[in-house]
C-alpha cells in the first residue's frame, strides 16, 4: 500500500523541471509560437536523447517501456513550461495506440522511429462536428486488398503539419470504429494548417481521399483506450499549467504593491489563490491514480480518466481566469506570459472532449 511517486518518478519530474526551465523558458516558447510550424526540432532532439520520446515505447522497439504514471511526470512539467510541439500527441498518444494495436512490422517502423526521435506521429479523431463522440465520426475506411483506403475530413488534428504518420479514427462499412495508420506523405492526404488561438499548439485539417492505410488491431476498444490515454495526458498537462499560473500569480502578488502594501496581503487575492490550491491538490492525487489505473488496467481506468480530464480542465480554465485577474492589467498584455497558459487552458478544455462530455461518460460508466 503506497500511494505516492516512486523515487525514480520524483527524479524524472525534477529533471524534467530542470531541463525545461533551462531549455524551454517562455522566451523560447514565444520564439516557437512565432514560427509557422510550431515545432521546436532542436528541443525535440534533446528530448529524444533524454529518452522522453520513447518513454512508453516497449524496450524491444527501442523505448524505456515505462508507463503512464511515469509519463505523467513529464506531461505535468510540459504543461508547467507550456512546452510547444507534438510531444503529447506523438510520444504519448500515437505511441500508446501503436504499442497496443500495431503489427510487429508497423511498430518496427514507426514506434522505433518515434522512440529515436526520428518520426512524429499524431492522432486524428474529430471532424467537422467538432466533437469526439463516436456518432460524430463520418470518415470511412474501405478494404483494398491487404490494406485499406480512407475517405473523409479530419479537423483539429494536432501537429499534422509536421507529422510523419497519422492515426486516424474511421468507420468500417459495418459502422464499427477502427484506428488506421496513414503515412502523412501518402497520396490522397492533404494537410492544411489552421490558425490557432493557443500558439503553443498547432492543429490542422486533414483531408483523406482514398488515402492508403493500415488498420490497427483492437477496434472500438482501442479507440476507447485512445480517448482514455488522451484524457489522462491532457489532464496531466492541465495540472502542470494550473500550478504555473498559480505560482505566477502568487509571486506577482508578493512584489506588486498597491495601497502601500503587496497586493498579496489583500484577502481577496489570498482567497483566490487558496481556492486554486484547494481545487488542485486533490485533483493531483486523482491524476496520479488515473495514470496508475491506465498502467494496471484497473476496472475503473476509463471512468477515472474521464474524471481527471473533466476536473483538471475545469480547474485549469477557472485557475487561469483567476490568475489573470490577480495580475490586474499586466496580465492582459501580450508581453506578460500569463496569456500563454490562459489560452492553453482553453485548448485543453475542448481537446479530446469537454468536461461536460466526460462527466456524462462518468455517469454512463458508473451506471447512474
Amino acid at each position, binding site marked *: 500500500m503506497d500511494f505516492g511517486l516512486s523515487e525514480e518518478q520524483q527524479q524524472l519530474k525534477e529533471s524534467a523541471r530542470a531541463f525545461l526551465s533551462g531549455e524551454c523558458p517562455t522566451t523560447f516558447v514565444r520564439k516557437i509560437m512565432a514560427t509557422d510550424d510550431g515545432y521546436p526540432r532542436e528541443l525535440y532532439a534533446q528530448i529524444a536523447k533524454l529518452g522522453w520520446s520513447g518513454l512508453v515505447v516497449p524496450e524491444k522497439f527501442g523505448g524505456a517501456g515505462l508507463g503512464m504514471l511515469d509519463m505523467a511526470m513529464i506531461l505535468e512539467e510540459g504543461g508547467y513550461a507550456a512546452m510547444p510541439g507534438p510531444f503529447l500527441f506523438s510520444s504519448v498518444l500515437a505511441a500508446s495506440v501503436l504499442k497496443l494495436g500495431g503489427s510487429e512490422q508497423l511498430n518496427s517502423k514507426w514506434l522505433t522511429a518515434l522512440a529515436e526521435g526520428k518520426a512524429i506521429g499524431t492522432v486524428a479523431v474529430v471532424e467537422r462536428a467538432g466533437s469526439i463522440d463516436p456518432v460524430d465520426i463520418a470518415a470511412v475506411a474501405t478494404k483494398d486488398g491487404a490494406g485499406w483506403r480512407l475517405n473523409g475530413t479530419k479537423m483539429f488534428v494536432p501537429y499534422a503539419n509536421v507529422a510523419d504518420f497519422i492515426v486516424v479514427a474511421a468507420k468500417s462499412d459495418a459502422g464499427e470504429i477502427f484506428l488506421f495508420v496513414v503515412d502523412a506523405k501518402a497520396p490522397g492526404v492533404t494537410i492544411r494548417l489552421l490558425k490557432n*488561438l493557443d500558439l503553443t499548439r498547432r492543429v490542422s485539417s486533414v483531408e483523406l481521399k482514398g488515402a492508403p492505410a493500415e488498420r490497427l488491431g483492437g477496434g472500438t476498444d482501442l479507440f476507447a483506450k485512445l480517448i482514455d490515454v488522451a484524457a489522462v495526458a491532457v489532464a496531466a498537462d492541465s495540472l502542470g499549467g494550473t500550478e504555473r499560473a498559480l505560482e505566477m500569480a502568487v509571486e506577482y502578488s508578493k512584489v506588486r504593491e498597491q495601497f502601500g502594501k503587496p497586493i498579496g496581503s489583500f484577502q481577496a487575492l489570498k482567497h483566490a489563490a487558496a481556492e486554486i490550491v484547494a481545487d488542485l491538490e486533490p485533483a493531483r492525487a486523482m491524476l496520479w491514480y488515473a495514470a496508475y489505473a491506465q498502467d494496471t488496467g484497473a476496472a475503473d481506468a476509463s471512468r477515472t480518466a474521464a474524471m481527471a480530464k473533466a476536473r483538471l480542465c475545469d480547474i485549469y480554465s477557472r485557475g487561469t481566469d483567476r490568475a*489573470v*485577474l490577480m495580475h*490586474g*492589467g499586466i*496580465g*492582459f498584455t501580450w508581453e506578460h506570459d500569463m496569456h500563454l497558459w490562459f489560452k492553453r487552458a482553453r485548448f485543453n478544455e475542448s*481537446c479530446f472532449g469537454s468536461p461536460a462530455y466526460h462527466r456524462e461518460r462518468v455517469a454512463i460508466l458508473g451506471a447512474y
Partner: protein
Amino acid sequence: MDLQFTSEEEAFRLKVRGWFAENMPTSGLSADSEGRDDKTWLARAKVWQRRLYDAGYVALAWPKEYGGQALDPVRQSIVNDEMVRAKAPYLVGGLGLMMLGPTLISWGSEEQKQRYLPKILTAEEIWCQGYSEPGAGSDLASLKTRAEIVGDEFVVNGQKVWTSGAQYADMMFCLVRTDPEAPKHRGISYMLIDMHAPGITVRPLVQMTGDRGFNEVFFDNVHVPRKNLVAKLNEGWIVANATLFHERNMLGSASGSEQRFNRLLALAKSIKRGGRPLTEDPVFRQRLVELEIRVEAMRYHAIRQLTDQIRGKNPGVEAMINKLVGTELNHDLASAAMEAMGDYSMLSRDDEAVLDHGYWPYEWMFSLGLVIGGGTSHIQKNIIAERGLKMPKSR
C-alpha cells in the same frame, strides 16, 4: 409603472430605425476588432459619428447651447437600443461622449464647455483618458505624473498606461499630481492635455489578443495652459470619481450584453452535437437560460436606473454594481460561447473555418480585460461594500 412608450416616442423609434437601415456603413467599421491605428479606419469612423450627429442621434440629452438637444434620457435610450439592434459600429468619440462630456457639463468652466463639447459631438476632437499609471492601478490615487505650475502653465512629466485610443486621440483628460506633499487624494488635479503637444510620446501596448489598442503615454516637460484645469487645483479626485462612475456604467452596458446573448443563442442553435442543435442539449440549455436571466435582469435594472434618472433620483448602491455585473456577465457569455464551439474554439479569429465570423475568441479575451479595466471586480466589490453598504474601510 408604465412600460409603454408614448406615440411620439414610438414614432421617434421608427424614424431612428429607418435611419439606421439606410445609413449603416457597409464596410470597414463593423468589426470591433479592426486595427484602430489604421488612418483609413479613423477617417471613416469620424465620418460615421459626424453623420450620426447631423442626423440628431448623438448625445441627445446634452444642453442645446453646446450642440445637444436637451431631450429626455428616453430618447437617448431609444437611440442606444436601435444602435444595438442595427449592430451599428461603436462611436470613435465614445470616451468624450460618455465620460468627459458629462463631467465637463457638471464641473467645467463655461469657456471649457463651449470650447470642447461641440467638437466631442462632431468627432472633430477625439479624447482619450489618462488615469492609470504603472504604479497606480487599483490604487489610482497613488498616481505620480507630476504637473508643476510654471507661470501661466503646467509642466507635466510622467507616464500613463492602458490609454486606449491614445494613438489617434487629439486630447486627453488626465489626472496629475499637483501637490506631492498633500495626502494622496488631496494633491490631484484634473486637466485637459493636447495630445499633439511637444513632449508626448505614445507607445502601443499589445494585448493578449495580439492587438494594439491600449498605449503607454509618456510626458516629457509637456506644457499645458492653466485654463485647461477642470474644477479647482488639487480637487481633481472628486471630478475623477464622477468620470469613473460614467465609465463603469459604460463598461457594464445592458444592451451590449443582450446583443451578445442573442449572438450566443444563435451560435448554439447552429451547432449540432450528436445530431441535435446544442440548444436542445438539456445541460447547455440550463446554462443558456441562466445567462439569459442575468442578461434580462440587467436590462430591467438599466431601465429602472433610466427611470430614476428621469425622476431626478440620485443613484444609490444599484448603480455601483453595473460595472461588476455587466463585465463579468459578458465574460461568462463569451466563455459559454467558447465552450459551445467545442474544438472550433481552438481557432483564432482569422481562420477560415472559425465560427460566427471569429467574434468569440477575441470577445472571450477582451471581456476579461474589461473585468480588470476601469477598476477590477475586486475594487468594485470594495466600493459596493464600503460606499454602498457602509461596511468599515480596511486600508
